Structures are given as structure tokens and as C-alpha cells.
């Protein structure tokens, strides 16, 4: 019994961690490449969930099938937000400006979501959602299993893009030294917009998975932004692997503390771990994937 | 009288000996220059004197105290100031305020800070620019601000790190004048400099390093006519 409980807790932690990872990777990317702490990140996660909902209600598209569409739409939206609103703050290089601007963006987008979808609790549902598997004594349901798989696939894909494609290399170069990258003929502005777009896209994809597993409201964005914060600090900035590691840690801390300490305490433990990590290793377990490697 | 004594100083980085058994002394109220090709170990030596690096072996004595391996701020308190090549002024403060900070928080203490500041600014030819924002200064002016800030702390010994790098002839000449004035005001200077013309003009004594070893030590005229120096240094980097 105790062994099964431990395994179940571990599996739950891994699944939760996978979702945290995916939902944080975009935040991490923007932080790494643009040096911007994107307070509107959580809103992009929610936008993904709401777009998935709209697609399902309008054309009956299964949320998982909607992933590419949602990615595309949010890629464009994210890029536009960067070009029109955030770029001003990045140009001035002020952390404070970028924080306030992205905070403003989150207020605006949240209000827009409320105007379009209302403040109600929504959820994405699908026929296979409640099918459960049993492996040994461990129970996993369709929503979570698909969530974990989609998270790992997306993170893998992003790694591939970052490390193997021309755009990815340009992003990493820009992260290290935007001025030098500019001298090498990289269009830094375009890379910034692309990065914001890719981040928003991945946030949106994670939003679909979040929506499959949990109901959502327009006011959950702070929660997801904070989670992304914690994930990035735990794992390290700017790399999919860092996000994965941070997310898994977050998931593990969350499920184990609530199982073995008390279901009320995960938040205390999560932020405690965050504080501890900041003090011991402010750059996260993996350090800054871009800035530390040279 | 000797202000600084360096005895058989050695610094080893993994396999590399950056400084090997260097011994030298710096006399009070003199300008002693350290020259040598890139990688000769000048910066390493400087960093050890100012406390940013701990020597592998050897001994540094300043003003009668052993300062080997001491923390930078304590060495600073003892009276060693350092002027960096890449000067970092407080950009939003005026020239005068920049110097005033150094005077107030330095060894002199706050009481005479105002007078010290005025004098340091005057010595460094910055009086007309005293109210300018440091962030708006040209590179030559910045170098002199860096020196003014360093001497405002009322040091006994000033470590000046390539103050002439990147300056044009007129600026270099002005800077060497300032260095002489600083020495005349009673501050001993240890200078690391690439610009041989400047070194010749200003130095009381020149020490040449090559590959971590001292290869010459004496007056500028003597040193620069030494065949070993010409071979080792001037040969590789014609001035």
C-alpha cells in the first residue's frame, strides 16, 4: 500500500511537472533571449485554453487536434504584442519598464477574454478524457497521460528547433550578445518578435493541456505566471531542459509535500523551495543556458 | 623610503605561471611603471597587490604591514587606491559628486571631504567640468575622473591601470601631466601602461616583466636601452 502510494505520488508529480514545464518554457525563453520577465505569460496560457474552447465549440475540433492551430494563432499574437507594445521597453533595456508593460498587457488581455468569453468557469472536454489506465496499482487518466505526452513532445520539438535550426541558433546568439548578434547580420528585432511568438505559442499549447485537466477562469493567469517563475528559477533560464527539470521539481515538491506533509502545504513548500534556490543557486540548477556557457 | 615591497611573488593558474618569483620595491613619492608585452603578468601583479587575487607564494608588504592575501576593501582602507582602465563612474552623478563620494567614504573621512574633492578635481584638471554629469564625459575626461576619484580617497599608493589606453596624443600628454601632479601632491604611483612614450615621460623607475618574470628594473633611460628589454619587449611590440 505505501509502495503504491509512493509510486502514485511520483507519477502524479511527474505528470504535473510535465505540464508545469511546458507552461513555463515560453517564459523561460523570453527571459533568456529578451531579458524580459513576462508578466503576461499566464494570460497566453489562458488564451490557449480559450482558443481551444472556441475551436471546439465552433467546429467541434478536438482540443488535441487544435494544438497546431492554437500555436499558430498565438505565435502571431505574441509576435504582434512584442512588436507593438513590449519592444519599447526592451529597447530601453529597463527591467522595470518591461515588467510594467507586460503587466499592463496582461490587464488588457484579461479584460478582453472576459469581454469575449465571460468570467465563467470553463473547461475543455473530450470523449476520451476520463478513460483511465491502471499500471500496477498506479492510476493515470486520459487527460493527464495525453498532457504529459504532449508536453514532452513539444519540449523535444522546441529543443530541436533551438539547437538545430537556423532560427534557433540566431535566438541563442541573440540571447548571448544582442549587439554582436546584430553585427553578425542577425535581425535582432525579428528574432525578438519570433521569440515572443514562439513563447506565446508554447504557452498556448500548454493552455490546452491545462484546460483538458483542470477547469479555468480568466483570473487564473497570475497562478500560471507565478508557476512559470518558480519553474524557471528552479531549473534555470532559457533552455527547454531547464524548464523540464524545474517543472518536474515543482511537480514533485507539490505532490510529495501535499501527500506526506499535508494537502494544505504545497504552496508553502513551493515558495520555500524557490526562496532557498534563489539563495543557494540563483541561476537555477542548470544555470543560465545562454549566458553561462561561453 | 619604501612604500611597497613585493618579495618573491608567484601566482600559478593551474599549469600556468602568470607571475614567477617577482621581487620589487616602490619608493615613496615616485612613479614606478610596470611594462611588458601582453600576457607578461602585469594585471595579475596588480590584482594581487589590490587583493583581488591571492598569491600562490611570496609576500606583499605595504607601508610596514603585511597585506598578502588581504580582502580588497581592507587593502583599500590601508591606503591603496586603484584606478581602473575601464572607468566606471556613477553616470547619474556629477563629476564633483563622483569625487565627493570617494572622498567621503575613503580614508580621509567626511570632515575634509569638500576640500579633498576640490583639490582632487583641480589636480586632475576637471574644475571646468565639475558640474557635468559623469555619464556624458568623453573617454579622456573619464580617465581623469577615475584618477580624481582614486586620489580623493587620500591613498598612500595609487595603482593606475593603463590610464592612457585609447587616448590620443593630446589627451595622453594631459594625463601624464596629471600623473606627475598627483605624485607631486604626495601620492606614490604604481603604473601599468602600454604607451612607452608616456612611460618614458612620466616614470621615475621602470620595471619590465616578460612571461611572468622581471627582466629589467631601473630608470627609464637605463631600462629602455637594455638590450634584453629591446629584444624581448620592444621587438615584439614596436611602440
Amino acid at each position: 500500500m505505501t509502495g503504491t502510494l509512493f509510486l502514485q505520488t511520483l507519477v502524479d508529480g511527474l505528470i504535473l511537472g510535465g505540464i508545469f514545464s511546458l507552461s513555463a518554457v515560453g517564459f523561460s525563453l523570453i527571459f533568456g533571449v529578451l531579458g524580459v520577465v513576462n508578466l503576461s505569460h499566464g494570460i497566453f496560457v489562458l488564451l490557449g485554453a480559450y482558443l481551444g474552447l472556441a475551436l471546439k465549440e465552433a467546429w467541434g475540433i478536438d482540443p488535441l487536434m487544435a494544438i497546431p492551430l492554437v500555436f499558430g494563432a498565438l505565435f502571431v499574437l505574441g509576435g504582434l504584442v512584442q512588436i507593438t507594445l513590449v519592444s519599447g521597453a526592451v529597447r530601453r533595456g529597463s527591467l522595470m519598464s518591461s515588467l510594467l508593460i507586460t503587466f499592463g498587457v496582461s490587464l488588457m488581455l484579461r479584460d478582453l477574454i472576459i469581454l469575449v468569453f465571460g468570467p465563467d468557469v470553463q473547461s475543455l472536454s473530450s470523449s476520451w478524457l476520463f478513460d483511465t489506465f491502471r499500471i500496477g496499482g498506479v492510476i493515470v487518466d486520459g487527460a493527464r497521460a495525453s498532457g504529459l505526452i504532449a508536453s514532452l513532445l513539444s519540449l523535444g520539438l522546441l529543443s530541436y528547433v533551438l539547437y538545430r535550426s537556423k532560427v534557433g541558433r540566431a535566438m541563442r546568439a541573440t540571447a548571448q550578445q544582442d549587439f554582436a548578434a546584430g553585427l553578425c547580420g542577425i535581425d535582432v528585432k525579428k528574432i525578438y518578435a519570433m521569440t515572443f511568438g514562439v513563447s506565446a505559442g508554447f504557452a498556448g499549447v500548454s493552455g490546452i493541456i491545462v484546460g483538458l485537466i483542470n477547469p479555468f477562469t480568466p483570473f487564473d493567469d497570475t497562478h500560471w505566471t507565478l508557476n512559470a517563475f518558480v519553474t524557471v528559477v528552479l531549473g534555470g533560464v532559457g533552455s527547454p531542459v531547464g524548464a523540464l527539470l524545474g517543472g518536474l521539481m515543482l511537480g514533485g515538491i507539490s505532490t510529495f509535500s501535499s501527500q506526506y506533509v499535508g494537502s494544505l502545504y504545497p504552496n508553502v513548500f513551493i515558495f520555500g523551495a524557490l526562496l532557498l534556490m534563489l539563495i543557494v543557486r540563483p541561476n537555477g540548477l542548470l544555470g543560465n543556458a545562454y549566458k553561462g556557457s561561453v | 623610503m619604501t612604500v611597497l615591497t613585493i618579495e618573491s611573488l608567484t601566482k600559478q593558474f593551474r599549469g600556468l605561471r602568470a607571475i614567477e618569483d617577482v621581487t620589487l620595491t616602490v619608493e615613496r613619492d615616485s612613479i614606478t611603471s610596470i611594462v611588458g608585452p601582453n600576457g607578461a603578468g602585469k594585471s595579475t601583479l596588480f590584482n594581487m597587490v589590490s587583493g583581488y587575487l591571492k598569491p600562490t607564494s611570496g609576500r606583499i608588504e605595504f607601508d610596514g604591514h603585511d597585506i598578502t592575501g588581504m580582502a580588497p576593501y581592507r587593502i583599500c582602507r590601508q591606503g591603496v587606491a586603484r584606478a581602473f582602465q575601464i572607468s566606471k563612474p556613477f553616470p547619474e552623478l556629477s563629476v564633483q559628486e563622483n569625487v565627493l563620494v570617494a572622498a567621503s567614504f575613503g580614508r580621509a573621512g567626511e570632515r575634509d571631504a569638500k576640500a579633498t574633492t576640490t583639490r582632487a578635481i583641480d589636480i586632475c584638471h576637471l574644475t571646468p567640468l565639475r558640474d557635468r554629469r559623469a555619464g556624458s564625459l568623453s573617454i579622456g575626461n573619464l580617465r581623469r575622473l577615475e584618477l580624481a576619484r582614486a586620489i580623493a580617497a587620500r591613498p598612500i599608493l595609487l595603482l593606475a591601470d593603463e590610464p592612457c589606453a585609447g587616448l590620443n596624443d593630446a589627451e595622453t600628454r594631459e594625463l601624464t601631466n596629471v600623473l606627475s601632479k598627483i605624485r607631486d601632491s604626495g601620492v606614490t604611483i604604481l603604473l601599468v601602461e602600454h604607451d612607452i612614450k608616456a612611460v618614458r615621460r612620466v616614470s621615475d623607475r621602470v620595471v619590465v616583466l616578460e612571461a611572468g618574470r622581471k627582466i629589467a628594473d631601473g630608470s627609464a633611460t637605463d631600462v629602455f636601452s637594455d638590450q634584453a628589454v629591446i629584444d624581448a619587449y620592444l621587438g615584439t611590440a614596436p611602440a
Partner: protein
Amino acid sequence: MNKQISRRTALGLLGATMTSATALRAMPARAATDGVIRFGGSLGMSGRYAETGLNIRHGYETAIKYINEEKGGVQIAGKTYSLELGIVDDASDPARATTLIQRQVDEGVDFFLGSYGSNVVLPCAGITEAAGKVTVQVGGSADQIFTQGYENIFGFFPRASRAWVTSIEFFKSIEPKPKTVSVMATNSAFSKLNAQAAAAGCKEIGLEVLDVLELPEQVTDSSSALATLRARTPDILITTTVDQNSLVIARQMIATETNVPLLYQFLGPQLPAYRESLGAKADGVVMQLPWDESLEFTDPTFGDTQSYIDYYNATNDRPFSYHTVGASSCITTYIEAMKAAGSVDPLAVRDALDAIDIVTAFGPVNFTEDGDGDPILMGAKIGQVQGGEIKVVYPENLRTAETLYPTPTWAEKG
């Protein structure tokens, strides 16, 4: 010369202060005598409880629209009044709420419709009470709202510690007799207070309380609490969480095959969104039902519950909820109290509210001495989802279906 300048500056400054002070003062208040009764109040329209806020707002608007447009206003002491609504968003921030409420008080609003969340309601009540204004609200039910000695505040719901009377009676009536119960709550005031009341009530009738499980205020993962439930399964699981959290818990119970003979969710299953999200799995879930469509009541404004529903549906896109009906009945209650008092003076209306005993589309309205809803008359019924619809299963005289107990496991429910 210099002195003159400073004096001029001083005068200018003083003038500026004065003009800005008068400019800030909003439009002159329209007193009730010129034929308009104004209702004010705040709702949390942008925050975690915005869904409830929107439902309540629709209820107020519907009643006021109906009275103004269909009935040509209300007659009180021989005068005809039209109604006006001024609701603001307090964003669940007490600083903002108190300021905005003060503004309405200053503007001469006499009748307030309350917000929810005791940290907003209580500071606002302090202001309206001191100004001699009245509040009737369908949101807050925390005990503190009614035990602070405020005389002018009324609530449609019985205070939390009394909200469990019917539920406990219902548990007693179940056959075969359940023996054990567990309670699940989040660490918010609403949830904690209700969990305490539920656990206390269960103990009183001899049910053994196995666990009181607490979760963080925003639940994303309840798997560990559910593991405890699987290890020590109660006959009844009570959740005193708000809508979103209830849905999270239910979905995770399904996902982890955590079965209990009876799942009682205080809030959540009442919402269509909840039932849509769970589909057939929602069957068997039991809830508090402050109001249900199947309960037919007469209504002095709309005639009866059915005509209210018809009018609501004809004028609104948004589906109604019990909060909507309660909010509409709030207005009706105010009007009836004014008629009874024969006056629109707030204190006279307050006295009439104290004594009010009417039936509205929401059900009977009768307040306790402390101002909260009478626990028997205004207490919730018990509902159960059966065949995708909510059926009233308790009290017996109102029931539209028999209680299903024990309920099938999640897997059995298609």
C-alpha cells in the same frame, strides 16, 4: 515683490484645491422624492468570484428593467417611482470597495445591494451603517457579517454556521444509514467556515468525521487528498469549495477512480458549466440548492417563478442561476418593504425589512434578528443530479425525485 508672488501662489493653490474638491464631487444626488429610487452597491466583477458577480448583476438588472418597463415603476405612499441601478466593480479589494461605496453614500444612495467576501462586505457595512443606509445582499454568508451588531444589513442566505441545518437533516434521512463522512475545504473564509459547520453538524447526529482535508485556495492538484480518501473511504464526502475548485476535485476524483457512495458538493453542481464538463459522470452528485426551477413560488413583482423565468430568458442571453433569482428577489423584497413602510426613508424601510415575511420567485423571505436568512424558510434544499438534471431530493414535501444512494462508481456512469 517676492512676498506678492508667494501670496499669489498660495491663493492659486488654495483655489485649485477648492475647485478640484468641488469638481470631484459627482453630480448632485437625485433624492427619492423626484421619483427615482436609486440602488447602489459593489460586486467583485474582476476577480476569482466574478462569475457569481455577473449572475447577481443580471438578477438586479432584470428586476429593475421589469419594474420600470413592464410595470411603469412602483407606487409607494401614493407616489410613483422609477428605479435606478448603480453597481460598481470592487475588484474584491476593500480599499477600492469602501471608497466607491462612500461615493454612493455621498451621492445620496439610500439602498445598497451587497458584495460578497467578508473582507469586502464588513468594511463597507461599517460605512453604510454609520450613514444610516440599508443593505440587502445575496452574496456573503460569513457569520461575522451578522454578528457584529450591524442593524441595517440583511442577507438572503442563512449565516454559514446555520446553513447546514437542512443538509444534516438530509443525511439523517438517507437509507441505508451512512456512518462516516469526510470534509474537504480550501483555506478561504467561506470554505473553512462552512467546513467547520458541516463537520460539527455531522458529529451532532452521530456521523463519524474521518478527515477534514484542507487544500490551498486555488486547487490545481488534489491527488494527495484523494489518495487519503481512497485509503479511508467515507460514506459521504462533503466539499465546501467554490465552483471552480469543486469541478477540479470532481474531475480528479474521476481521473483517480476515487469513489464515494455519496459526493456532496456545496457549490458547483448548480452551474450548467459543471454538468456540461462532467457529462454523465455528474450523475448522483448532491448539492445545496438555495433555489430550483422546479420550486414554484408566487412573486409580488413577476407573478410567479415561471413568469419570472420566462421574462428572464426573453431578455437575457446568459443562463440564470440561483444567484440571479436571489438578486431579482432582493429588489422585490426592497420594494415590498418600502410599500409596507409606506416610505422610502431608509430607516423606515429597514424596520419593514426586519419584519418582512413574503414569498418571492426565490422563495420565502424572512430575516432573523441578526439579519441573515431564516435557516428553515430561506435555508437551502438538497438537490441531486439525476439524468443530467437537478432534482430536488430533500425536504420530502418538495422533492421531485427519490435520493439515489449509494451512487454508482464513476466507471459505471458511462
